[in-house]
């Protein structure tokens, strides 16, 4: 019964269940929570990128109105090491006088009001011993890390294949630093009660915050409770335990009151990491008719002095196209910069821009339609192992997208499609997104009235987890969606994984699936102990669920409601725990495929001014089974907007001399506004994926990927100008 019978590929577009709470202001985000006796913290950040603090004068700050405490490295608590979770977490702040980047926290001020804390923070005087900072990825003094994750990949003989290739593309593609910029300002409200600690905190993984904070403060894990029922977006920014969190905890311990630390927008730029810039070197070898014989992709990305980051840009080249010879290598370089970190589609966003631009260049080189060349080199099976994919509807994405877009109306000649002083260009890009899943657990409980709730210590970062998990459990238990409540955002719930890597829906959904199966089993077993039950001798395999009832397959009259079974046995509720771990590709004999997609973009370039307007976008995606069509569409739309931002606007600018991020406000760091976003047509294709029991593939990130190369490829079609660096500026287009 628990396998989904005849799953529809598109789940009902149920409105998000948290919508009314959010629009009426009842959803309490971490910064909305206030506690009695709460004090406020403000941070002080370094104004040099490298060196040592030689003197700090906090006298004026301490005397400032309302100030309760000033903490610097001189009086900070000694904290324990921050454990690595999936990746490293920043080591505890204020433990020494070393400065590793501009914007590093060097003090925290606690006062009775936010205003008093902020005012006093400005009164702290700091003197430094400056050391020379390394800020340029090409600086020969910078530490380089080769093959940082042991994932460099090679098969065949790329060197020979490139030497022999009749056609070759050899180009460098670069992308700029971008900042996640979730709208909600990250906040930690720390409150101690004896030796137990409660945190209201903005993050994407409460159990990770719990684990790291417990280790730093020498507490058992159970003594730390992290509450994140709502978070104002993340885009990856909440996947590590950033330094403001232990600062708030330490501050609360010092003043013996709850302390709220809400970051400001400029602090969000330095305090939560950002997408690394990337340099991608790509060499493609091909036959004259456009068949790939070799792909070589190398990337260089950046790291802070003391952090790590998993961001392979080259790996897209190992699974996107069929090629007998492939090399993919990544390097990282350490700089005196704020932490680089996951941002929506880390690595793939940059690597795909490079690869899909290069494939486009190859199409022009051999005189093939850019759509054709992608179909010609289609990866029918995993090119690395030869195994079948767990599902892969990229071909369908490309075909359906081309049709919706009207690709056949394209005049292949450069600059041939004009409208007044605008040159019109059509661009396409394919997307093969990475696959990622981690273990997760959940508990499902049916109450005496037949309604149910599901619990897991995960977060809904706005993606719709509350809604789709209620839908999924309702389907598996035979209930209506409004009879099921998803509870999440509390580290004391069953251990949950991160809302990251587009992996939560598969991980949590599989755990919910497991729990629902076990729970139905329990109901069937219970019914079996009741000789009067219509289900008394019906084996589990023969039981179906619908409308709150269990019944014999094919004979709906022979059944009993969940509520009645509980009543008969004098139970107020019945629950079951569920777990999921990713399946093994070896056992299943298939390669798990992440989501797939195709982007078709019409750009219009003002030929005199170089202004690029995106006129329309068609984005078709294969996300396996889509649990909620409306929310999935919203994810793709939001991702598309992010993709336009990456292509045309977003650029975190670091001052070359000081290492200061020079545009850390929404006035200066440009993201798209409504007027920049055209009609976006979103469509889903594909089949339920075979790698997990619920058939889903995460779609939280893929929407962003491929938009930038499709725009750049469109600009080439319009103008004949090949732009190989992001963001694309008017100066470059005119140049």
């Amino acid at each position: 019964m628990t396998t989904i019978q005849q799953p529809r590929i598109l789940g009902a577009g149920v409105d998000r269940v948290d919508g009314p709470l959010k629009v009426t202001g009842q959803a309490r985000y971490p910064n909305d929570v206030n506690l009695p006796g709460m004090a406020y913290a403000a941070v002080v950040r370094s104004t040099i990128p490298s060196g040592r603090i030689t003197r700090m004068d906090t006298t004026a700050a301490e005397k400032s109105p309302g100030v309760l405490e000033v903490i610097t490295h001189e009086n900070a608590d000694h904290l324990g090491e921050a454990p690595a979770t999936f990746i490293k977490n920043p080591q505890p702040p204020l433990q020494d006088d070393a400065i590793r980047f501009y914007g590093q926290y060097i003090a925290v001020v606690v006062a009775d009001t936010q205003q008093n804390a902020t005012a006093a923070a400005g009164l702290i005087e700091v003197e430094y011993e400056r050391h020379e900072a390394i800020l340029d990825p090409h600086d020969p003094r910078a530490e380089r890390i080769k093959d940082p994750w042991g994932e460099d990949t090679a098969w065949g003989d790329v060197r020979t294949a490139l030497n022999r290739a009749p056609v070759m593309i050899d180009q460098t593609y670069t992308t700029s630093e971008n900042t996640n910029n979730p709208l909600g300002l990250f906040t930690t409200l720390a409150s101690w009660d004896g030796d137990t600690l409660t945190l209201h905190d903005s993050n994407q993984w409460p159990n990770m915050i719990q684990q790291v904070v417990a280790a730093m403060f020498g507490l058992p894990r159970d003594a730390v409770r992290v509450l994140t029922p709502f978070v104002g977006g993340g885009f990856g920014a909440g996947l590590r335990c950033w330094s403001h969190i232990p600062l708030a905890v330490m501050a609360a311990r010092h003043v013996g009151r709850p302390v709220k630390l809400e970051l400001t927008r400029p602090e969000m730029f330095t305090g939560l990491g950002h997408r690394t810039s990337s340099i991608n070197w790509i060499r493609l070898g091909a036959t004259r008719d456009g068949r790939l014989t070799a792909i070589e992709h190398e990337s260089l990305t950046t790291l802070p002095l003391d952090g790590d980051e998993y961001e392979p840009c080259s790996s897209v080249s190992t699974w996107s196209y069929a090629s007998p010879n492939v090399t993919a290598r990544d390097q990282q370089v350490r700089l005196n910069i704020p932490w680089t970190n996951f941002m929506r589609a880390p690595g793939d966003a940059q690597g795909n821009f490079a690869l899909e631009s290069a494939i486009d260049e190859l199409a022009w080189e051999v005189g093939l339609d850019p759509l054709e060349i992608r179909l010609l080199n289609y990866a029918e099976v995993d090119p690395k192992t030869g195994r079948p994919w767990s599902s892969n509807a990229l071909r369908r994405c490309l075909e359906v997208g081309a049709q919706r877009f009207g690709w056949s109306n394209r005049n292949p000649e450069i600059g041939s499609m004009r409208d007044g002083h605008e040159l019109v260009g059509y661009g396409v890009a394919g997307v093969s997104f990475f696959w990622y899943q981690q273990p997760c657990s959940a508990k499902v409980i049916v109450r005496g009235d037949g309604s149910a709730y599901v619990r897991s210590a995960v977060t809904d970062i706005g993606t719709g987890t509350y809604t789709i998990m209620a839908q999924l459990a309702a389907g598996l238990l035979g209930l209506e969606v409004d009879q099921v409540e998803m509870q999440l955002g509390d580290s004391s719930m069953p251990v949950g994984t991160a809302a990251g890597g587009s992996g939560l829906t598969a991980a949590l959904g599989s755990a919910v699936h497991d729990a629902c199966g076990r729970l139905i089993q329990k109901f069937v077993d219970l019914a079996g102990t009741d000789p009067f039950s219509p289900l008394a001798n019906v084996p589990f395999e023969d039981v179906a669920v619908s409308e709150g009832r269990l019944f014999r397959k094919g004979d709906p009259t022979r059944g009993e409601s969940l509520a009645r079974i509980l009543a008969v046995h004098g139970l107020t509720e019945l629950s079951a725990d569920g777990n999921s771990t990713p399946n093994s590709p070896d056992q299943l004999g298939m390669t798990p495929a992440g989501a797939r997609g195709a982007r078709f973009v019409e750009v219009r370039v003002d030929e005199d001014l170089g202004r690029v307007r995106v006129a329309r976008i068609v984005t078709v995606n294969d996300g396996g089974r889509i649990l909620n069509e409306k929310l999935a569409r919203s994810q793709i739309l939001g991702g598309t907007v992010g993709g336009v931002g990456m292509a045309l606007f977003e650029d975190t600018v670091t001052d070359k001399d000081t290492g200061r991020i020079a545009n850390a406000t929404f006035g200066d760091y440009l993201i798209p506004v409504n007027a920049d976003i055209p009609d976006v047509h979103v469509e889903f294709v594909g089949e339920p994926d075979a790698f997990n029991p619920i058939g889903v593939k995460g779609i939280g990130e893929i929407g962003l990927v491929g938009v930038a190369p499709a725009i750049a490829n469109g600009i080439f079609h319009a103008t004949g100008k090949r732009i190989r660096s992001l963001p694309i500026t008017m100066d470059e287009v005119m140049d």
Partner: protein
Amino acid sequence: MDFLRATTWAEALRMKADRPDATPVQGGTDVMVEINLDKGRPKALLDLTPVAELTEWSVESGNIRIGAGVTYTRIIAELADRLPGLAQASRTVGSPQIRNRGTVAGNLGAASPAGDSHPPLLASGAIVEAESVDGTRMIPVGDFYTGVKRHALASHELIRAIHVPVKRGPQYFSKIGTRNAMVIAVCSFGIALNAEDRTVGTGIGSAAPTPRRAVEAEAFLAGNWPAGDLDPAVAKRFGELVAAAAAPIDDVRGSSGYRVHALAVMARRTLGWAWQELRNGGRS
């Protein structure tokens, strides 16, 4: 920081005379942002929003006298027929929220070279009415801008109103930004043709330390007042002269080379639109 709130214009002038260090606040869309970003702390704020007379406009001898408290939204809604250049520029300012609060007086007070009202004010020959307890000064807008974010007001003076001549021919404004809305101009250009006198007004934004006119371009076009079709050579030369009047810098929004190039294009295009309107007998 002291907070002064004037309820009448006379009171405002007295307060400013007593506290020349007070920063006037109209819509606050520049002042509050600067304070929020901690770019200096004014000793005092002088709130002008309760002063009712500032929120009115009137017609005075061929000019519209726009009170310092009249918002962009109202200029767009109430004055677009008579001051089309200024109304077009107003439409490009920020977002609806900003246009509901922001004022031309505030734009002048901020005196940013990128302020969007400056090119149409220059092109149409506007006059700033400055007032203090000592009396009133009428400052031609071209003399108002004295440096980057600096202006000709004395420390005890306030802007009472801006006098903008009612259109006497086509007026156009063009702005280039790095995105389609909510954006500071990379550069901007305003043109106003006076069909009766056959004179030309221009204004360049964001391409020099201050907003400025392209005087030679104005004289050239007046001397070559097009008869019949616009001669492409005239349009081209006009664009070159506008570009030559600029003295831009490189910054994050654009290079100086791009700005010079774009100004020439915008000058040609706005002239084309203006000329088309002239030929259509005043219809755009």
